């Protein structure tokens, strides 16, 4: 019975964690890169572009844009309110200041959400590139294992291509009759040679050779990950700025509350006399 209760408790706890995380994602929107396996062979620069295009069609990008426009509208409102301050009575100024503080608070909330969403985007990108890095490293390991076989296959290909012309010479003497595959092989081989020459002459070929090399690709991906890490570090600093802004707004709100209570005190003219103070009763004893 005890074990059963423990199991139920564990299941409900783990379930609550999952629901909590999914709720958190729904508030800011989500982004799961919908990239096909074949796109992994693209050079890192193009892969980054594909990733950015994929992000632009996600709910996170929409929320980011709407939050960004909210932040801009808050800044405009605060500036407009500040411009209204000169030439107003003290009560009106107080009201305007109150509005400014409210808008600053909303700005801080929106800006905080904006930074969270930017961080989420960067972390998702980082995870994606890390996955590619792991795949490339695993491919390197399997290639090391099969490298001797690949070498032998390459040698076999080269030897086969070298004696193609000898085969053509011998077909007239030794071979009984040419098969369909034999004839098609010759036609396709010539076509493949022409295409290979065209690829070698293509201006983009040198550029792609550098990116096809797994070592270069790993380096490029490491550079991307490094730049993402530095962007995340900058966002952390901006989050710190927001926390200081929030402190200032809190202090502004405190000073506004003090000035409001001061005014109401002055209006009511409440003087607190402490009747229990002996100094006030000295006259009773000295006269």
């Amino acid at each position, binding site marked *: 019975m005890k074990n059963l209760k423990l199991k139920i408790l564990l299941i409900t706890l783990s379930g609550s964690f999952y629901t909590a995380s999914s709720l958190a994602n729904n508030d800011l929107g989500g982004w799961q890169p919908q990239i096909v396996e074949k796109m992994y062979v693209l050079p890192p620069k193009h892969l980054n572009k594909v990733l950015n295009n994929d992000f632009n069609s996600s709910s996170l990008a929409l929320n980011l844009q709407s939050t960004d426009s909210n932040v801009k509208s808050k800044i405009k409102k605060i500036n407009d309110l500040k411009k209204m301050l000169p030439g107003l009575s003290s009560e009106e100024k107080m009201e305007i200041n109150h509005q400014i503080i409210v808008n600053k608070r909303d700005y801080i909330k929106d800006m905080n959400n904006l930074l969270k969403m930017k961080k989420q985007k960067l972390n998702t990108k980082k995870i994606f590139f890390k996955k590619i890095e792991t795949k490339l490293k695993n491919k390197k390991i399997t290639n090391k294992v099969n490298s001797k076989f690949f070498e032998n296959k390459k040698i076999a290909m080269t*030897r086969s291509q070298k004696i193609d012309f000898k085969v053509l010479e011998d077909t007239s003497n030794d071979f009984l009759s040419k098969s369909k*595959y034999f004839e098609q092989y010759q036609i396709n081989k010539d076509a493949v040679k022409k295409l290979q020459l065209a690829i070698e002459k293509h201006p983009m070929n040198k550029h792609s050779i550098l990116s096809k090399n797994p070592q270069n690709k790993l380096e490029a991906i490491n550079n991307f990950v490094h730049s993402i890490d530095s962007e995340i570090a900058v966002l952390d600093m901006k989050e710190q700025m927001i926390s200081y802004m929030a402190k200032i707004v809190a202090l502004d709100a405190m000073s506004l509350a003090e000035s409001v209570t001061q005014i109401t005190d002055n209006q009511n003219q409440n003087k607190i006399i402490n009747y229990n103070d002996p100094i006030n009763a000295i006259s009773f004893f000295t006269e």
Partner: protein
Amino acid sequence: MSQNFKIIISTLLSLTFTSQIIASPIETLERERANTLSYVLDKNISVSDRKKFLKQSKMRLLDLERMAINNKNISTNPDYNTIKAFENFDLTFLVHSSLEKGKSLSITWLERIGLTTNNLMNTKVIRK
């Protein structure tokens, strides 16, 4: 009832086993190579017949060798036989090897396994 059940089970099993059998290009090549070598080693056929059979199989063997060399799927997870086949190019790809050396297929194979003219001439019959 039990007999029907046995028939059904055996057909199902045979289907599962046969569905997984896909001959690799190396296996097909090896089969044809064995067939060709059987003509080389066959004592019961005449010289002209042997020549005719070898001409027929040489074309097929050349096509199969080219298919095996140019096959891209062979590179993904090659099995032991494929690895060994590519390690011993001269023994596996007999037509290519014979054309490279400018010798007949049978002589290329016999020399590769050590049955050269010199070796044969140097053999002696010894009584133990």
